[in-house]
């Protein structure tokens, strides 16, 4: 057990592994929804330390990975405009659009800034009244309150040179889509703890009831993930399907009311394309109509580009848990973090990037110097 010593409490980790081994009498497939959980699992070898009967399926909870190609292309089009300062979280810079990524736009003279907080983009708009500042507002429910605040403040401060390119995605509709998919093999879900710290856990009860599937709200540290798996296996073995909160030290059932109120004000639910997966009904947020003045798509008149994904890239199957990253023929060869074919190879929360970083020597011979 070469990884066990790397847990911050190896003794507790061993007890959790032993308990899971004792509980598991048959095969179960458990999906961790959050990309941060995937990263923890692969880094710590949790999937390799679990009994063979427990399979972990890596879910679509990586915002960088599921932001649709058409939106990336819109971002690239806007970022290339000479009057624009384009602000983004750093993970988005290398995500391939149909022809370029943001790094290339920048090398061709685009003014692209990495922001830590979305409020940095608002500040830039105030400091550069002669420029158009655009913030790339992507992510799941966790980044939505910070992103919504930029629009609220820009409105409050009367900023006419600030806008947002919004592509938000929501976890519960994705879980529902997976539950109702005929190809899904998922027996239980580990829900994303930090999404629930914003939204609470109340959205998940109806899914548990409708699909009779255990959902365990789980953190993303290695021991949190192990505890989530233990609870999921315990429910499955007992023939139960309950909503369980394994991350109570952070997540309440109601969530953060102030954050939810801001989201309600600034965004409204919309259908959303998920990169590699397709359209999921009511699975996203867009700017609500009252803030249409801050919509970068309208301001710059960017339109959808119909561009195909790389034919080699199987990230859609990875995102749906149908294959593991190293089962893609391009993994570690044509597709590396330095030259990614799909977004799952870009973000550290992407399953392909996690496998590349921690597993490639185990599974795929890679040329020296690649990546």
């Amino acid at each position, binding site marked *: 057990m070469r990884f066990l010593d790397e847990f*911050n409490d190896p003794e507790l980790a061993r007890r959790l592994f032993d308990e899971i081994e004792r509980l598991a009498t048959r095969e179960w497939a458990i999906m961790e929804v959050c990309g941060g959980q995937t990263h923890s699992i692969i880094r710590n070898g949790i999937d390799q330390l679990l009994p063979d009967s427990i399979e972990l399926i890596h879910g679509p909870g990586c915002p*960088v990975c599921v932001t649709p190609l058409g939106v990336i292309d819109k971002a690239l089009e806007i970022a290339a405009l000479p009057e624009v300062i384009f602000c983004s979280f750093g993970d988005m810079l290398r995500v391939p659009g149909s022809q370029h990524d943001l790094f290339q736009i920048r090398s061709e003279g685009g003014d692209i800034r990495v922001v830590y907080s979305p409020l940095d983009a608002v500040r*830039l708009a105030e400091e550069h009244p002669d420029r158009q500042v655009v913030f790339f507002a992507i992510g799941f429910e966790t980044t939505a309150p910070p992103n919504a605040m930029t629009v609220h403040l820009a409105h409050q401060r009367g900023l006419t040179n600030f806008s947002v390119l919004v592509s938000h995605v929501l976890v519960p509709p994705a879980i529902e889509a997976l539950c109702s998919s005929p190809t899904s093999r998922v027996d239980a879900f580990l829900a994303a703890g930090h999404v629930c710290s914003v939204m609470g856990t109340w959205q998940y009860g109806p899914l548990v009831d409708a699909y009779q599937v255990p959902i365990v709200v789980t953190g*993303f540290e290695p021991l949190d993930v192990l505890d989530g798996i233990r609870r999921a296996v315990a429910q499955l073995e007992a023939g139960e399907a309950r909503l369980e909160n394994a991350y109570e030290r952070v997540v309440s059932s109601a969530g953060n009311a102030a954050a939810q109120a801001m989201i309600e004000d600034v965004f409204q639910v919309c259908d959303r394309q998920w990169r590699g997966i397709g359209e999921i009904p009511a699975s996203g947020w867009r700017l609500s109509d009252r803030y249409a003045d801050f919509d970068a798509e309208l301001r710059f008149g960017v339109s959808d580009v119909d561009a195909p994904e790389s034919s080699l890239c199987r990230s859609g199957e990875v995102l749906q848990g149908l294959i593991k990253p190293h089962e893609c023929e391009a993994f570690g060869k044509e597709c590396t973090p330095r030259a990614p074919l799909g977004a799952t190879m870009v973000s550290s929360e992407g399953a392909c990037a996690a496998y590349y970083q921690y597993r490639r020597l185990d599974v795929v011979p890679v040329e020296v110097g690649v990546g």
Partner: protein
Amino acid sequence: MCLAVPGKIVETRDERGTRMATIDFDGIRKDICLAYLPDIEVGDYAIVHVGFAISKVDEATALETLALFRELGVLDDELGVTGGTVGGPIPDARGGVR
């Protein structure tokens, strides 16, 4: 982007009607927004997501998580410390995943 980091509130202030704070993440200080945790006070620990305090945590939990992040070497990445000046020009393309 999705990693949420706990830190200790060391100072709070009002900036044009928005409650802001200086927070200490294991020695790295950042300005964050408290709009979503209006009752949090100096000395409390909060989990911070892209510059916003989202939920309060107890000190023991926060310190444990910070120690783990330090060990994993993810703190600087998540806080943008290695990603160039915040809001400044971006650094050159880096190879490999972080």
